[in-house]
């Protein structure tokens, strides 16, 4: 088994993360349990320092928890095995996406799979409305444009799960709306969205669920805020490797 069934239905249990040792131990996440479903958007909200980014980095395989079990629907895994399994299927986007030296086109080309044609970069530029910025040095882009480059990279990779850390922070209303529009297209293709935001009112157009994280615990859970995508059932489960629209 080298793939996660897609659309995903992942259940995370007992996520614990702390820093420091002995009496200096600081508990960041305290037995967090949550679920990620393909085609659905979950907003995780809370104050600064509540553990949102830490949680997202753990889900993205970038940070090891002290403890966590993950049920993929087919098997139950510890985090280390989960991290190997999610390779290529879970993508984490930073609040300020890192742009490598080079043009926007060059940055997008890094996301190309070896089987994808180079023309897929043009499609991604068009999708993210970045065609007129394709030859601009990516490091000079505005925050909103950087976020769109990162989303275009995600669009090329078509991950099963997309994790976004404060993707619209410091954006004006127009840029935020455009980002939400782009995110909604991921939902339509069955990608699960997990968004960390300090503002619980952002993303109301696309969010299905909202979780409140306080001092490392989920203290409030609002579900079914939108009609969830009923078409994603176990009957049409496919693997990511069979579903690369840009190849």
């Amino acid at each position, binding site marked *: 088994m080298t793939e996660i069934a897609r659309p995903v239905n992942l259940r995370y249990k007992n996520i614990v993360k702390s820093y420091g040792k002995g009496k200096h131990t600081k508990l960041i996440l305290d037995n967090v349990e949550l679920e990620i479903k393909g085609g659905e958007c979950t907003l995780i909200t809370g104050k600064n320092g509540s553990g949102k980014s830490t949680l997202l980095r753990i889900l993205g395989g970038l940070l090891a928890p002290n403890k966590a079990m993950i049920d993929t629907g087919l098997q139950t895994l510890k985090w280390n095995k989960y991290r190997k399994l999610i390779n290529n299927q879970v993508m984490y986007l930073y609040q300020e996406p890192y742009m490598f*030296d080079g043009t926007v086109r060059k940055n997008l080309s890094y996301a190309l799979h070896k089987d994808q044609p180079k023309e897929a970069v043009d499609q991604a530029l068009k999708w993210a409305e970045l065609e007129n910025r394709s030859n601009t040095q990516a490091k000079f882009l505005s925050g909103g444009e950087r976020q769109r480059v990162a989303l275009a990279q995600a669009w090329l990779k078509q991950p099963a799960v997309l994790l976004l850390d404060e993707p619209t922070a410091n954006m004006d209303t127009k840029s935020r709306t455009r980002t939400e529009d782009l995110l909604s297209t991921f939902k339509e293709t069955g990608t699960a969205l997990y968004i960390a935001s300090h503002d619980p009112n952002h993303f109301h157009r696309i969010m299905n669920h909202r979780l409140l994280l306080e001092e490392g615990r989920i203290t409030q859970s609002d579900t079914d805020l939108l009609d969830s995508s009923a078409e994603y059932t176990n009957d049409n489960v496919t693997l990511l490797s069979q579903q690369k629209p840009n190849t």
Partner: protein
Amino acid sequence: MDSLASTTFDAIKLLFSGDPEIWTIIGISFQISTTAILIAMVPAVLLGFLLAYYSFPGRRFLVAFFNTMLAVPAVVVGLTLYVILSRQGPLGEWKLLFTQTAMVLGQIALSFPILVAMSHTAFQSTEMRAWDTAKTLSNNIPKAFMIIMREVRFALLGALLAAYGRIIAEVGASMMLGGNILNYTRNIPTAIALETSKGEFAQGIALGIILVLMAFFLTISLHIMQGKGTVIHD
């Protein structure tokens, strides 16, 4: 002043005369230093990368060790290797002392800490976000490594030039390990030291001009390459 001018003039004449002895010395210098830098480069850059992005036991010690090694004089490195390679030393049987191989080993020992420390700094300067992003985008470590290498290419090039500049101009280790044998282990710095001690300044200055020209050429090359990488607003 007149003496300096006339000696410099003689040195330039000597260079353009195609004197085989002087050009052999120059050839040996570049051959040994280039070999040393090519051997040291890959493992040193890999180590710098690991020190920057991975946590493992002894990491801090290694960082401190290589930073300390930057300050160790070339003659001390030469002396250490001399003891190891001398007939009574642990590698005495290999009979490497006063060979070009010994000089290469000495120059590797000198350039390695510079390459590790400077490449470590270069990788660190890109912050963890860059490495995470490269991994996320490529989904394979070798490809992610190449993305990061491209990101820090100018800093790495700077490290290479700094290391090359140090080893091609060092005299202590080359003298001790090579023995300054004509047409075999005599390189630019050992030849300068010898000619100066004999009062033959023209050849020393001629070789010094080569070192200065090389430093100038390498610096200009770096600036040109960095210029190509300069970002321009559209």
